[in-house]
Each structure stands twice: as structure tokens, then as C-alpha cells.
């Protein structure tokens, strides 16, 4: 033990005071010649052991208190060797970057890599001299900075460290180091350093180091793994497709598995859970570093178009987050679609409903699809049907028009597409109540638009769709720029006559010219959707575009009010999900896998009727429910989604040493382990307080006695 102010140790002489007081007090004792010595000695024998012990303890306590004070003022300290960066002992500004990405949650003995990293970060903070300015950042993608301003308050940093929970997001070291550099740029200290506590996984460094080309702060990496390699096995992907061969409600669950080790795995257990219940189990052999696939067939037994949670799980290893993966599935099994083929052809792929029916069957497994010619359709045949699609029908009969009006008003869905055979005049006359807008004249595109890369070359003049508005529920699941949809070319379409503005009517898609492409209208309890072009390849190549299937699927769901899964229903941790308000909904609530609830309120002044939910840092299923203007709460299963791990986190490959941004060795250059100064006055102060309490208790006891 050494002292910063050894001269103050002279104060230790104060420790003699209690002894002097004791001796002087003894001399000052009143002498009394007493007759009953025999009784006195007996009484003294009775209590002497207790009394002497108390006297000794009192003397020790008082001596300890008298000695502790000068010791505390002398600032004692001890020096201990440490494996923490020796650079931390300099005066400096430092940003601590703690890797809280998913891979840090893997087990390391009784704790996790994250806990190990946090412990070392905590030890480093305590090791810093008191004049070091500190900030604290996290390395996971999209994380918020914990302390973004440099401050010498170590207690605040320690408190912030304590509150951090390892996330399921992937790492983004470039962003973290970039932000750390920005924080350090305003530092007053000459030495500016970034201390990164990480497992040095290669994933997360794809964007480089993020450090500025010049004037970058020093980076010190603390590899909490000790450079020990680790093997891992993961479920990389889970896909669910209809499986009619499995019977009604049959699905096929395809799981892609991977091994990230040098040994591989024989007989790896793979299980299937549906709605949390284990329904199947199998085994897979994985070669070292290889991939494997497992397919499960299963029949969903629930009634109606309910949502299901499908989970594939493999035998556990140290990294548990990638040992299972979820998929959100909804089957519209009760959907019964009647397609009226207005332009039958002998060649199947030229038949009007060919692409439309295929999209329905594949997009909505379980949906019953019936195709009839217009003459075969009677008003009675609408019974039991939930969706009627009139594809390029020349003219509906009066009876059929009346039957369809009743059908839609009662809640049925009607999809209308046009074509060369449509007689707009009769349609406008007989279907006026149902058509979102009166049909006009066909229009042929006059100019050849810009040609997209790798698209099918067609020299016919065509027009494209205008940028889509994803705030519409039907389009919410499409990519932001509408890939697969806006690339479609429209050679001919039917113009629609103007109609008065109405709350029941809305344009979902428009052509670049501004003409409506897809219009919907609420009629009674049902809904009608009008596509102003064909659903075969006669007027457009939309049917062969990737966006056709989701467009038909979502249109069908919307028309019959069936909720369903979409591409956006499966996110990777850290990705955002757009949630759309519907009708008079005022509030959306997201129940997270850990039970917490996130609430978004509808902004009356907002131009959009959607919110972006980005707190997807927990794996599992997120359920959404809506609260209407009248306070009624209803589930919004079509907005439910699952969050899975970003599979980059499963790969244990380490960062190439040549790409490491750190340039300072952890150990001191002399080979001697660095020493860490530990101040002892806190301990002494605690001991002094304890002694004071003892002294008070003993004195009180003595007075009571």
C-alpha cells in the first residue's frame, strides 16, 4: 500500500488518544475503601467477561476511528496488474463502444459474451483517471447512443452500462465508430481514443471502419472472446408454401440450415412447431461449413382464415438466437372465388383468367377457385361465393347486374378487369351502382418508355405506373419503390370517365399519365375494384411481373375482408415495419414478444395515415391491435409480423486482422503487465463508518446497562 500524501500519516498519532484517555481515566479513578469486597468481587466475576470484552471492543473501535481519519486523508492506494488497456491510464477523451449485437448473446461459461464485455468495460471505466472525459455508444445497427456527450462523470457511465441489454440486431461497427469519431472531434484532450469491446465477428464490418481518413482517433479493440474460435449451427431461412398434396390446409415448411464449424454435425435434430406446439421432428446431417435443407409437410386444422405461427427449431448450441426461426402464415381457406372468363381461348396461357387464377391459387393456398363462362353464370350461382371476378366480360345481363349489386351490398367482393370485349356503354348503364368510375374509351400508349435493365424487350409503345403510395393498405407490403409493379408496361388501357369525389371511392394505382389504373369503391358492406386494363398479356405485361401475384392476392383479400400475410410480415431484427391506420382507428398498439406494448397515436394533421415501427430488437411475433374512435379494440392480424435474426450474425468468421482498425497494442511495450492503481480510501471510509456504528452501539449498550 502506498500513499499520495504520506506526510498526513503523522495524524496516526491520534490513534494513541483513546489509549491515553483510558490510562488517564484509570489514574483518575476515585479510591474507595470498601467493606463488602467479597460481594463486590462476586458481582465483578459475574459480569467481568462481558464487560471486559465490551471495553476492549470499545477501545479497538475508537483506536480504529482515530487511525482511519489520517489514513483516509493520506490517500492510500495499491497497484495491481491488469489485462485492461494500459492506454487507459493517460489523460484523454474516450468513447466506449460496447458491442450489443446478437452474436454477443452467445454463452461464455456461466455468462454471455455480452456480459463479459460489459464487465470489462465497467472495469475499464473504473480504471480511468478521474479527469478522463467519457462517452458510451453501442455497436448494434440502429441503436441509440447511451451517452453522446463527453463527460467526466464515471458514475453516469457505469449506470448507463448497467442498463444496457444485449439486442438481437446485427452489428454496424462503421456507424458506431463514425459516431464515436464525431463525438471525439470536439474533445479538448490531445489524446482521443475509442475503446471497442466486441467479439470481432467479421459480420458488421462490411461498410468498413467508418473512421475519417485523417485525424481519426486511436481505436483500441478489446476482443472479449480471447480469439477462441467457436462453432455454430443456424436456421437460416424458413419458407412456407401451399402443399395441396398434404390435403386441405396443407403447407410445406422448408428450412434452410447451416453449419459454421470445422466438424459438421451428424443427426442434427430439427423440429417444427405450429402455434407453439411441436408437430414434427427430423434429423439432418450437416457437412463442416455446409448447408442443409429440411422440408416438413403439415395440415393446418384451424377454421377460417386465421393466422398461424410456424417455427423451425434445431438442437441448441451456445448461440441460441439462431437455433430457431419463425414464419407468419395465414391461409384464406374459406375464400371461394368465382372467375367469369369473358374471353376464353384454347391456348391455356392465352386464356383470360390464366394468370389471375394462378396468382390466386398460389397466393392464397386453400382458396377455392372456380372458372365459368358468362353464359354459365346465373344469379343463383353466386351463393357461397365470397369473390366474383369479371374478367373482360362483354356485358353483364341485367339480372346478373342486379344479383351482383345485392351480392356486393351484402359484403361480397367484386373484381373487374377490362379488355377488348367490354362494351363500356352497357357496363355503364347496367353496373352504374357498382362501377367505381364509368368506363370510357380505350387508350393505346403512344410512346415507348425508357427501357429497364434485363426486362423483356417489347417494341410496342407502353406506359408505366406512377410511383405507388404505400400508405394504402393494399400496397403496404410492396417494396418502397414498388419494384415488381412499377416496372410493368401497359400498352393499352381503358380511360375512366370522371366521377364526383367520394369517401367511398379511391384510386389505388395510376398510370404515369395520371389516368386511374386500379380504383376501388365501397358499396354497402362489400367492395368493388376495377382494373382498367387486362389481366392477361393482351394489353399489358403486368401478369408476368413479380408484383402481379401479391397485387392479386392483396386485392382479393381486401375485397373479401380476409387478412393475410405479406412479405413485410417477416422482418429481420432492426428492420422497420410500416403500420397503416384503417378507417377511424385512432391508435395502434404493438405487443412485443417480451410482453411490453408500444403505442402509436394517429396524428390528425398528418398527411399519411401510417406509422413506422422500428423497435424490432427482440425476436418473436409482434401482434398488432387497433383502437377505434369509439374506444373499441380490435385485432389487426394482417399487421402482425415476426422478427427473425439477421443471419449474418450466425457466421462466426472473425474479422481479417489486416482490416482491424486498432493500432495500439493492449499490453505495454516492455512486456511487463500494466499496473492499475486502486484507491483504497473508499474502503477505509467504509471501515471507519462501520467502526463508528460499533462504537455507538457499544456505548449505548453500556449506558443502558
Amino acid at each position, binding site marked *: 500500500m502506498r500513499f499520495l500524501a504520506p506526510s498526513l500519516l503523522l495524524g496516526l498519532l491520534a490513534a494513541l488518544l483513546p489509549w491515553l484517555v483510558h490510562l488517564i*481515566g*484509570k489514574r*483518575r*479513578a*476515585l*479510591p*474507595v*475503601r*470498601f*467493606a*463488602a*469486597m*467479597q*460481594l*463486590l*468481587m*462476586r*458481582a*465483578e466475576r*459475574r*459480569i467481568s467477561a462481558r*464487560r471486559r470484552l465490551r471495553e476492549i471492543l470499545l477501545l479497538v473501535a475508537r483506536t480504529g476511528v482515530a487511525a482511519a481519519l489520517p489514513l483516509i486523508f493520506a490517500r492510500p492506494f495499491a497497484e495491481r496488474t491488469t489485462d485492461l488497456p494500459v492506454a487507459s491510464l493517460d489523460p484523454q477523451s474516450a468513447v466506449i463502444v460496447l458491442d450489443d449485437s446478437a452474436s454477443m448473446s452467445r454463452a461464455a461459461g456461466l455468462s454471455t459474451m455480452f456480459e463479459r464485455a460489459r464487465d470489462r468495460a465497467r472495469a475499464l471505466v473504473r480504471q480511468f483517471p478521474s479527469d478522463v472525459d467519457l462517452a458510451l455508444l453501442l455497436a448494434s445497427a440502429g441503436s441509440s447512443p447511451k451517452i453522446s456527450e463527453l463527460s467526466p462523470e464515471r458514475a453516469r457511465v457505469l449506470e448507463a452500462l448497467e442498463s444496457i441489454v444485449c439486442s438481437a440486431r446485427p452489428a454496424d461497427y462503421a456507424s458506431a465508430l463514425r459516431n464515436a469519431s464525431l463525438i471525439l472531434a470536439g474533445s479538448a484532450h490531445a489524446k482521443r481514443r475509442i475503446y471497442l469491446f466486441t467479439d470481432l465477428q467479421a459480420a458488421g464490418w462490411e461498410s468498413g471502419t467508418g473512421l475519417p481518413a485523417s485525424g481519426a482517433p486511436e481505436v483500441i479493440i478489446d476482443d472479449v472472446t480471447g480469439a477462441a474460435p467457436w462453432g455454430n449451427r443456424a436456421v437460416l431461412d424458413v419458407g412456407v408454401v401451399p402443399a395441396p398434396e398434404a390435403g386441405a390446409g396443407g403447407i410445406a415448411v422448408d428450412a434452410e440450415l447451416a453449419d459454421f464449424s470445422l466438424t459438421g454435425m451428424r443427426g442434427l435434430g430439427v423440429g417444427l412447431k405450429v402455434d407453439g406446439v411441436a408437430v414434427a421432428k427430423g434429423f439432418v446431417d450437416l457437412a463442416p461449413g455446409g448447408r442443409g435443407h429440411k422440408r416438413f409437410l403439415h395440415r393446418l386444422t384451424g377454421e377460417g382464415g386465421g393466422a398461424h405461427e410456424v417455427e423451425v427449431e434445431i438442437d441448441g448450441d451456445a448461440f441460441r438466437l439462431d437455433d430457431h426461426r419463425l414464419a407468419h402464415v395465414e391461409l384464406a381457406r374459406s375464400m371461394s372465388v368465382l372467375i367469369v372468363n369473358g374471353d376464353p381461348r384454347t391456348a391455356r396461357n392465352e386464356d383470360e383468367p390464366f394468370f389471375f387464377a394462378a396468382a390466386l391459387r398460389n397466393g392464397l393456398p386453400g382458396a377455392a377457385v372456380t372458372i365459368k363462362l358468362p353464359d354459365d353464370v346465373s344469379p343463383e350461382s353466386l351463393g357461397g361465393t365470397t369473390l366474383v371476378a369479371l374478367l373482360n366480360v362483354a356485358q353483364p345481363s341485367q339480372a346478373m347486374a342486379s344479383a351482383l349489386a345485392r351480392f356486393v351490398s351484402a359484403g361480397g367482393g367484386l373484381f373487374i378487369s377490362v379488355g377488348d370485349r367490354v362494351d363500356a356503354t352497357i357496363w355503364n348503364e347496367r353496373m352504374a351502382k357498382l362501377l367505381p368510375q364509368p368506363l370510357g374509351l380505350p387508350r393505346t400508349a403512344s410512346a415507348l418508355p425508357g427501357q429497364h435493365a434485363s426486362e423483356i424487350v417489347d417494341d410496342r409503345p407502353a406506359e408505366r405506373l406512377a410511383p405507388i403510395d404505400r400508405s394504402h393498405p393494399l400496397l403496404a407490403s410492396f417494396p418502397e419503390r414498388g419494384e415488381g409493379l412499377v416496372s410493368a408496361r401497359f400498352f393499352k388501357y381503358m380511360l375512366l370517365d370522371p366521377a364526383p369525389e367520394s369517401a367511398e371511392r379511391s384510386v389505388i394505382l395510376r398510370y404515369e399519365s395520371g389516368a386511374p389504373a386500379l380504383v376501388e369503391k365501397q358499396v354497402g358492406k362489400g367492395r368493388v375494384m376495377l382494373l382498367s386494363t387486362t389481366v392477361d398479356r393482351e394489353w399489358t405485361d403486368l401478369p408476368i411481373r413479380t408484383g402481379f401475384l401479391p397485387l392479386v392476392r392483396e386485392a382479393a383479400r381486401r375485397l373479401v375482408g380476409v387478412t393475410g400475410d405479406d412479405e413485410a410480415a417477416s422482418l429481420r431484427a432492426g428492420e422497420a415495419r410500416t403500420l397503416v391506420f384503417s378507417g377511424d382507428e385512432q391508435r395502434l398498439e404493438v405487443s412485443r414478444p417480451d410482453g411490453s406494448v408500444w403505442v402509436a397515436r394517429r396524428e390528425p394533421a398528418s398527411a399519411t395515415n401510417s406509422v413506422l415501427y422500428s423497435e424490432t430488437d427482440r425476436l418473436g411475433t409482434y401482434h398488432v391491435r387497433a383502437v377505434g374512435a369509439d374506444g373499441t379494440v380490435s385485432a389487426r392480424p394482417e399487421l402482425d409480423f415476426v422478427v427473425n435474426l439477421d443471419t449474418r450474425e450466425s457466421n462466426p468468421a472473425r474479422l481479417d486482422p489486416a482490416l482491424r482498425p486498432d493500432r495500439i497494442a493492449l499490453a505495454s511495450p516492455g512486456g511487463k503487465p500494466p499496473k492499475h492503481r486502486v484507491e483504497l480510501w473508499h474502503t477505509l471510509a467504509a471501515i471507519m463508518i462501520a467502526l463508528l456504528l460499533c462504537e455507538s452501539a457499544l456505548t449505548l449498550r*453500556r449506558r443502558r*446497562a
Partner: protein
Amino acid sequence: MSEGATGSGEPPRPGLLDPVDLARLASLELRARTIVEGAFSGMHRNLHPGTSVEFTEHREYAPGDEIRRIDWKAVGRADRYFVKRFEDETEMRTFLVLDASASMGYRRLGVSKLDYAGYLASALAYLVGQQGDAAGLLLFDEKARSFLPPSTRPGQIREVFRLLESAQPAGRTDAALALGRLGEQIDKRSLIIVMSDLLDSEPDEPGVEARGALPERLRQLRARGHDVALFHLLDPDEVELPFDDLIFFEGMEPGDPRTLLAQASDLAQAFKRESAAFRDRWRAACLEASIEYRFARTDAPPAEVLRAFLADRQRAVRH
């Protein structure tokens, strides 16, 4: 036998002087008379009840006896001459035995135990003298220091007073030895009144036997037909230890090596318990030996103590 305790815990009767007030009186004789008068206010009974005309025994006629005392009825029955003897004619002698060792000199407030014993002894001697009985005195420490045989001669009581007034506390205590000597010298039935603090002589204390065995001596006296009463005198300090300071205690008697440095307040509770147990042991030992035990604190009015003693004795005789 009767026993009792008198001390400051009981309020003194009006007109009874406490020991400090008594000490202000000029002579021991006056103190004795004051005590007796205080004790006998409203109570005119003798120390030896049944005197005057009460018949006690027959004795064979001897030349010199009054003819009128001859019991002619007894002569007729036994054909020999007997004279009647009455209570006031029995030779009842009273021995006052006082412990005058150094420990009896302890005094912090009030009077010492020896002074207090002197007050009681002088009052008793005065009373005995008034009744025409013989009173004697033995002052002892580790040996018999002064011995005045009982007598009814004129000036006997004054001699008792003189010896009591001149007594100074000194020496170690050996009451057993003194009482042993006394027992050897008394050949007639007597009332023996012992006054002592009884410290360092306990009935049950292991090792005390070697120092004299006072209880055994008292039992022997009682077995020989003597009437024995024991006044156990203690200073209030020896009952309660009412000190607050750090005290260096030393023994009082010569050659006593015992010392103790202690915060007296720490010891007070334990000391009170020890003192009470000490008195209880003596009380039990006296009860067993049919000896009258009477405990008195030196802050109690002596007349009160004397009155209680006499009252108990009269009650015992009546029953």
C-alpha cells in the same frame, strides 16, 4: 424466633430520631435513653416478659431463704421444703456482643456500622439495667478485645456505655473465635445479642470454615440453651452500591489484598443481587438454627429497629 429488616425503605415513625440526629446528642447514655423512649412510646413491656408475680420454678429450701416463700402444699406432697421462685427472681443475663473490626467502620453518609451497633447496644443495656437485670458486653475483632461480664451492680451500665463509646473499628474479623471464647465462659442461660456486618463469614461459602465458622458457633450457643439474636448491620452502600464513577475499591481490613477498578454503575445490578443473596443465606441459616435474625441498614432509626425486635420477642413468648 423472629426475623425482620428495617431500613430506609420504611418511613420512620414520628418522634423517632435517625442515626445522624442521634449522633448529635451529647452522650451515649442520652442516646440510649432516647432510643428506648422512642421504642417504648405507648408500649411498656419488659425485655424479659413474665416478671413480677409470675411463678416459674421450685427450689429446695436453703438457709437464708424467706420463710414466707416456702410452698407448704409442696411440702405436704413431697415431705421436703421447697420455696417458690418467680420470674423477676430468675438470673436472666444479657450479653451484648459487638463486632468492632475495621469493616464495621465503613461510612460514607450517615454513621458507621460500629456507631450504629453502639446505639442499639447502649439502648438494650439501658433497658436491661432499668429492669434490674445483668448486662454484659463483648467487643471483638479477630479476638475478644474487651469483655465486661454481666452484672447488676451499680455502675455496670455506665461501664458498658464507656466501653461502647471508646470502641474504635480496627483489625480483622473473627466472630467465631470470639463467640467460642464467650460460650466457654457462660455457664448460665443467657440472652446473647450479636451485632455484626457478617462480611467475610458466610454460612455456605466454601473455605469459610477455616476462618471460624460463625454459624456453627451460633448454633452451638443455641444448643446450650442460650437465647441468641443476630443483628445483621449493613451500610446502604453495601446494599445498593450507589456509585456512578470509575472507582478503585480497596478492602478495609488489615492485610486484605483485594482491590478492584471498575465503573461502579456497571456493577450495581449484579452487586444488588449478590447482596440480597448474601442476606438470604444468613436468614436461612438462622432460621434453621432457631436464631433470631434481624437485618438493619444503618440509615434506619435505631428506635424503630429496637421496637420491632422487642415486639417480635413479646409476640414469640405469648405464642
